[in-house]
């Protein structure tokens, strides 16, 4: 008989372990407010509300008393980057744990003061009371209790059934400001004496500034300064209009070298497969009893470069005071940005304060960090006045890092019954992450343009332990007997890539779910039944069954209408999502309806989760039907919404979401769960309607016509 393992020592949640001092998270004011200071930032995902809910629940205060503080390197806990659908998971757990411990600290103090045991005390909206009408409160005790102490492992948060707010669709705290146009966005912020800056960037990819006649720009009224540092050049003016006019004039006086050659847009897979790569075996599984292969199907899938294309061009403000600089940014990671600014400026990090202000929707590593360095460099010429810099729409569409193009090859060995006995999945792609603050070199655009430039950072992939990059979601969730997954990361990077929602997840789920659909179809097996037969995880099966049930899978065949299914578990460890897509059309297809089922464990704010899933589903539909970064051999040519169309109101599908609530399972994020499954479901629905498999995204009219001609 073996001895039972001792239960492991309790551990602090990861964000709290990194920032254990309780007062850095929570502060009580004698006036009756709780100030909560998370390290994660609002990027349109509603995190501020979810964290306020968690804190209010654990502390037993009305949510109206919770004041949320924006992240700043001056005081906030360092929670790295707000990305990867980890905000609720990391910040939420830390807040819950910290508040549970703080609640106990206050109860203990109240018990001492009131002379009764803790067990007879209760807390209601911050008031701590006991028998005989004895009472005190967080607000009364606030000045007497120091939270300048480290969190201890083992604090016990409330049971899910004791929580009043978590699990309820509390209205988001930021929405009233946004519908009443109370300035919240960095774009709407002003500082006393603020100037406006613009940076001049080349039209040809990688071109260098070889000459600059400044006379035209100097003549623009209200110009304050022209800044040139190597190939970096920009203007600072008293007004935005003047800055725009000066930039236009400066551009006329600029001479550029020829640029770098870009790949052939029409041969993306060939390009990706011909580059020097670093290859990694991501996973390998060997069958216990090998089965004879009767035949092998081999399929190749591609997805293009995809733009973040936020509705707002990136914006930042910076102000120097001697050798110290204060930066306002909508970056996803204030500390990480500070690290890179320190590298470029060759300053100690203590001289730099980076403060978050909300930007427009953020779907990954967009130019928020780049424009912050632009503002810092231009502000050097502003004599201590703050400078606000905003990128142009064209720069946002061409100089931002893109989601990386991918070529994915899957070979499935089939036995005599057409079942999969072996599976090989190979990925060719640039890395999916070149975020600031994580390497010896800065990742900021202007860092490659200044007089002593840093080399351009070649994107890398996060390790599988963190969800992987190009290889994210490439390991099958299905019970296949054997497989080998290989990722080939390009070591050249003619087109700048970094993190975009799901990293490689969208491409990999598209490929895997497409092959499965094909194998099921060839066996004459229902694709839902086929998936269920190859899954053992009940949560996975539940979302598939729920989506299929809600969509009345599978509705009778009608001409011109198709149905398809897609499934994934984001990062293989996060949210489960299954979707049934209904499409109609022939050369021009329209996605009519998406029916999704989702399991994020405990949904702190169910409507917030549904909002994220709906948004992800619609954004994924846009990627699938419309989006690709366009380029010729010299430049990015998709510079506007005309060249880079996204889904419009009239094209948006109906979206229905069923949320499977599991209040006792730790919550995970929802923002990226839908993209892969929706992509696959639409492609599978196209086959159902039109009997053609489209394996190259986006699914455009030209590709459909070509595929149907090939088929006929």
């Amino acid at each position, binding site marked *: 008989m073996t001895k039972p393992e001792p239960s492991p020592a309790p551990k602090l949640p990861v964000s709290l372990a990194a920032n254990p001092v309780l007062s850095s998270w929570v502060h009580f004011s004698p006036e009756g407010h709780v100030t909560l200071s998370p390290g994660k930032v609002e*990027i*349109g*995902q*509603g995190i501020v509300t979810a964290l306020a809910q968690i804190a209010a629940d654990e502390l037993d205060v009305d949510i109206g008393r919770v004041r949320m503080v924006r992240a700043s390197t001056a005081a906030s806990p360092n929670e790295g980057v707000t990305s990867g659908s980890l905000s609720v998971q990391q910040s939420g757990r830390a807040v819950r744990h910290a508040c549970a411990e703080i609640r106990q600290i206050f109860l203990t103090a109240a018990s001492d003061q009131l002379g009764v045991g803790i067990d007879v005390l209760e807390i209601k909206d911050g008031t701590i009371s006991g028998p005989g009408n004895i009472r005190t409160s967080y607000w009364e005790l606030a000045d007497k209790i120091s939270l300048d102490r480290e969190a201890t492992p083992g604090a016990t948060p409330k049971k899910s059934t004791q929580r009043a707010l978590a699990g309820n*669709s509390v*209205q*988001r705290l*930021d*929405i*009233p400001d*946004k*519908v*009443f*146009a*109370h*300035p*919240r*966005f960095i*774009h*709407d912020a*002003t500082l006393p004496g603020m100037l406006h800056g613009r940076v001049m960037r080349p039209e040809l990819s990688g071109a260098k500034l070889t000459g600059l006649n400044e006379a035209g720009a100097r003549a623009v009224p209200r110009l304050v300064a022209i800044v040139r540092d190597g190939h970096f050049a920009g203007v600072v003016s008293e*007004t*935005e*209009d003047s800055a725009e006019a000066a930039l236009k004039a400066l551009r006329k006086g600029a001479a550029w070298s020829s640029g770098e050659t870009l790949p052939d847009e029409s041969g993306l897979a060939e390009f990706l497969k011909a580059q020097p790569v670093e290859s990694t075996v991501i996973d390998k599984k060997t069958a216990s009893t090998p089965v004879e292969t009767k035949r092998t199907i081999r399929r190749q899938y591609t997805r293009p470069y995809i733009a973040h*294309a*936020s*509705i*707002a*061009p990136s914006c930042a403000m910076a102000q120097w005071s001697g050798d110290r600089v204060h930066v306002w940014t909508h970056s996803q990671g204030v500390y990480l940005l500070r690290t890179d600014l320190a590298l470029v400026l060759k300053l100690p990090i203590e001289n730099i304060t980076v403060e978050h202000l*909300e*930007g*427009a*929707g*953020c*779907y990954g590593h967009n130019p928020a960090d780049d424009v912050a360095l632009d503002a810092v460099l231009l502000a050097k010429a502003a004599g201590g006045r703050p400078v606000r810099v*905003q990128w*142009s*729409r064209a720069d946002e569409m061409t100089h931002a890092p893109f989601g990386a193009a991918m070529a994915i090859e899957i070979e499935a060995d089939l036995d005599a019954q057409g079942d999969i006995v072996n599976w090989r999945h190979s990925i060719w792609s640039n890395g999916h992450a070149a975020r600031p603050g994580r390497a010896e070199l800065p990742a900021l655009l202007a860092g490659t343009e200044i007089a002593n430039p840093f080399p351009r950072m070649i994107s890398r992939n996060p390790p599988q332990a963190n969800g992987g990059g190009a290889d994210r979601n490439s390991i099958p969730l299905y019970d296949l007997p054997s497989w080998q997954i290989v990722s080939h990361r390009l070591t050249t990077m003619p087109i700048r890539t970094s993190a975009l929602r799901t990293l490689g997840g969208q491409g990999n789920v598209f490929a895997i779910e497409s092959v499965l659909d094909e194998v099921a179809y060839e066996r004459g097996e229902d694709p839902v039944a086929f998936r269920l037969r190859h899954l053992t995880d009940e949560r996975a099966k539940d979302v598939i069954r729920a989506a299929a049930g809600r969509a009345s899978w599978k509705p009778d065949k009608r001409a011109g209408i198709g149905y398809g299914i897609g499934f994934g578990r984001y990062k293989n460890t996060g949210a489960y999502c299954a979707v049934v897509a209904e499409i109609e059309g022939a050369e021009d297809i329209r996605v009519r309806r998406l029916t999704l089922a989702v399991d994020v464990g405990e949904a702190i704010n169910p*409507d*917030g989760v549904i*909002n*994220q899933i*709906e*948004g*992800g*589903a*619609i*954004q994924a539909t*846009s990627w699938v039907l419309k989006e690709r970064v366009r380029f010729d051999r010299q430049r990015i040519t998709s510079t*506007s*919404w*005309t060249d880079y169309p*996204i*889904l*419009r*109101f*009239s094209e*948006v599908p*109906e*979206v229905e979401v069923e949320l499977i609530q599991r209040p006792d399972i730790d919550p995970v994020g929802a923002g990226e769960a839908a993209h892969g499954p929706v992509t696959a479901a639409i492609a599978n629905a196209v086959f159902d309607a039109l009997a053609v498999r489209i394996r190259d995204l986006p699914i455009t009219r030209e590709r459909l016509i070509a595929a149907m001609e090939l088929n006929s």
Partner: protein
Amino acid sequence: MPRIQFHLNGVETNVDADPDSSLLSILRGPLGVTGPHFGCGANECGACNVIVGDHAVAACDTPLWSVADKDVTTIEGLGSAENPHPLQRAFIAEQALQCGYCVSGILISAAALLMQNPKPTGDDVKAALDRNLCRCGSQNRMVRAVLRAADEMAAR
């Protein structure tokens, strides 16, 4: 600089500026009205929409001279937290946004629609908002919110 006069959110407003300036740069610059948002500067996204007369137009693509003596309504003129427009109430009730950067222009397009068509269908709403871009994917909630506001206005 010539002086141009117009009615901004019901208030007589005078601006001394180049008549060829975009209305957006005048609103956001000297007038400090930041509800209309810059998105593209090319009348392609609707984030800067304002109502001139009774039509929604892109302020980025509207020269200042063209609004002389006209009524201009921005989101600030639609309603306030104390006295919200039914659309603003409905957008809160439906939680009809994610990041909200596009929403000031969308509220304006929707308000212009309801001025012309108080009982729109879902398809009417989609058509009226088709020139407004939303990148977060909140379109269905926004359509529901506009229909909700129309119902509320009809019931009054």
